[in-house]
C-alpha cells in the first residue's frame, strides 16, 4: 500500500501543511501517535475518502483509490474500508443484527454476519436495540458493522477512549482477532502508550502534519537500548516482598510473569507502571510442547 497526501490544514494555532508519504506492508497494524491537531484524524479521513487532499496518491493492493494526477477519487462507499470512531453511530430503531445487515452491499453473502457475530461474541445481543447496550457492547457492534463489507483497511479513531480499562482491554483483543482473521491493514489513532504496545507492530509519530518517525513501539518508548535478547514490555500488577527480595508480577500481553528484584529495583516500581523486562539470550530454557 502506498499513499502520499498533501493538504493545508487549519489548527488551533494557525494552519500547517500536512505532507505524508508512506509505503506500508499490508497486514500491519499501525498506530498514529502524536499531539492533537498533528493531522492523525485527517490522515484517516483522507484514506477513507472523507477529506480530499490537494495533491496525492493512494494505492491499496493493486487498486488506485485516489490519484490527483489521473483524477481518480473513489467515494468512501467504493473504498474497501471500515471505520470506527469514538461515538458508536448505530441506528437506534434497529436491532444489533439489523444494524449489521444494513451494512451489507447488494447481493452480498450474508454468512459474514454469522462469522462476525461469532468472532465478536454478539450472539446474546443480536436481537437487542442499541439503547439497551453498554458502551463497550455498542462499540463491539460498531466494530462488527465496520467489517461487514470485508474491508481491506480498518480505520480506528480512538475507538476505545470512552471505555473503562477492563472493557478497553477486551475490545483491544477483539480488534486484534479481527485484524488477523480478516487480513486487515489497520490504522489506529491512540494516545495511550500501553495500547500502542499491545496493538501495533509499527508506530508513526506525527507532528505538524509530518511523520517524524516510524518504528516499533519498543524502540520509540524505551529510552535505553538494552543488549538483552529476551525482552518484553508489560505492566506491573503486583510488587511483593518475600524474604530479602521482592517478587514483581508483570502482565506481558496475556501472560503473567514473575521477576525477582532487589529492593533498589523494586523501590522504583509501583503497580500500573509500564516496564521493560529483559534477560540475556543465554538464560531462558526452551522446551518443546507436545
Amino acid at each position: 500500500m502506498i499513499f502520499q497526501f498533501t493538504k493545508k490544514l487549519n489548527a488551533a494555532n494557525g494552519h500547517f501543511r500536512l505532507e505524508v508519504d508512506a509505503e506500508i506492508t499490508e497486514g500491519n497494524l499501525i498506530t498514529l501517535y502524536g499531539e492533537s491537531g498533528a493531522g492523525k484524524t485527517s490522515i484517516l479521513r483522507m484514506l477513507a475518502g472523507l477529506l480530499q487532499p490537494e495533491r496525492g496518491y493512494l494505492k491499496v493492493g493493486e487498486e488506485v483509490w485516489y490519484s490527483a494526477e489521473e483524477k481518480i477519487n473513489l467515494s468512501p462507499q467504493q473504498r474497501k474500508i471500515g471505520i470506527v470512531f469514538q461515538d458508536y453511530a448505530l441506528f437506534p430503531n434497529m436491532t444489533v443484527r439489523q444494524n449489521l445487515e444494513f451494512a451489507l452491499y447488494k447481493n452480498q453473502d450474508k454468512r459474514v454476519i454469522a462469522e462476525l457475530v461469532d468472532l465478536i461474541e454478539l450472539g446474546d445481543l443480536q436481537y437487542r436495540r442499541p439503547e439497551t447496550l453498554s458502551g463497550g457492547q455498542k462499540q463491539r457492534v460498531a466494530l462488527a458493522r465496520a467489517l461487514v463489507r470485508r474491508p481491506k483497511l480498518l480505520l480506528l479513531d480512538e475507538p476505545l477512549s470512552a471505555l473503562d480499562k477492563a472493557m478497553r482491554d477486551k475490545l483491544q483483543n477483539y480488534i486484534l482477532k479481527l485484524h488477523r482473521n480478516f487480513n486487515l491493514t489497520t490504522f489506529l489513532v491512540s494516545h495511550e502508550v500501553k495500547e500502542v504496545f499491545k496493538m501495533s507492530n509499527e508506530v508513526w509519530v506525527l507532528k505538524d502534519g509530518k511523520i517524524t518517525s516510524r518504528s516499533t513501539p519498543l524502540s520509540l518508548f524505551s529510552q535505553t537500548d538494552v543488549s538483552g535478547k529476551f525482552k518484553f514490555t508489560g505492566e506491573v500488577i503486583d510488587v511483593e516482598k518475600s524474604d530479602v527480595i521482592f517478587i514483581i508480577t508483570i502482565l506481558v500481553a496475556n501472560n503473567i510473569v514473575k521477576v525477582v528484584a532487589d529492593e533498589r529495583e523494586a523501590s522504583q516500581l509501583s503497580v500500573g507502571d509500564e516496564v521493560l523486562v529483559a534477560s540475556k539470550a543465554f538464560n531462558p530454557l526452551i522446551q518443546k510442547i507436545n
Partner: protein
Amino acid sequence: MTLVELKVGKYLLKSIVLETPQSAPYLKIDNTINVLFKETEVIIAKGDLTPMSLQNRINGVVSKIERGEILGRLTLDSDIGEIVSLITTSAIDQLILKKGDNVTAMVKTNEIMLSA
C-alpha cells in the same frame, strides 16, 4: 557474538553479547555504556581463590548483611561502588561471612548485560 571488554574503574570486566559492532552501534571502542547484572547472579568467594573459570572478579568489603529465611542480601563496598549480592542464607553461614570481611564478587561473562 562479541566478547566485549569493559573498563570499569581499575577492573577489566568481560561480557558476551549476541550483537556485533555492525548490528549494535554502541559496541564501539571508547564508547561509555552502562554495565548491568542481576544481584542474584553475583557469586561470592572468601579467601584464596582456587583456579576457576570465572573471569569477572571484583574485590570488596562486606558492609551489610541481611539474613532472610532462605535468601540473604550482602552489600559490598568496592572500588567501583556498592555491589549487592543475593545468595542463600546457608551460604552466608558456610562462608562465616561478617561485616568487614574481604570478599571477591564474581559475575559470569554471559550474565553481564550492556545498555546504551
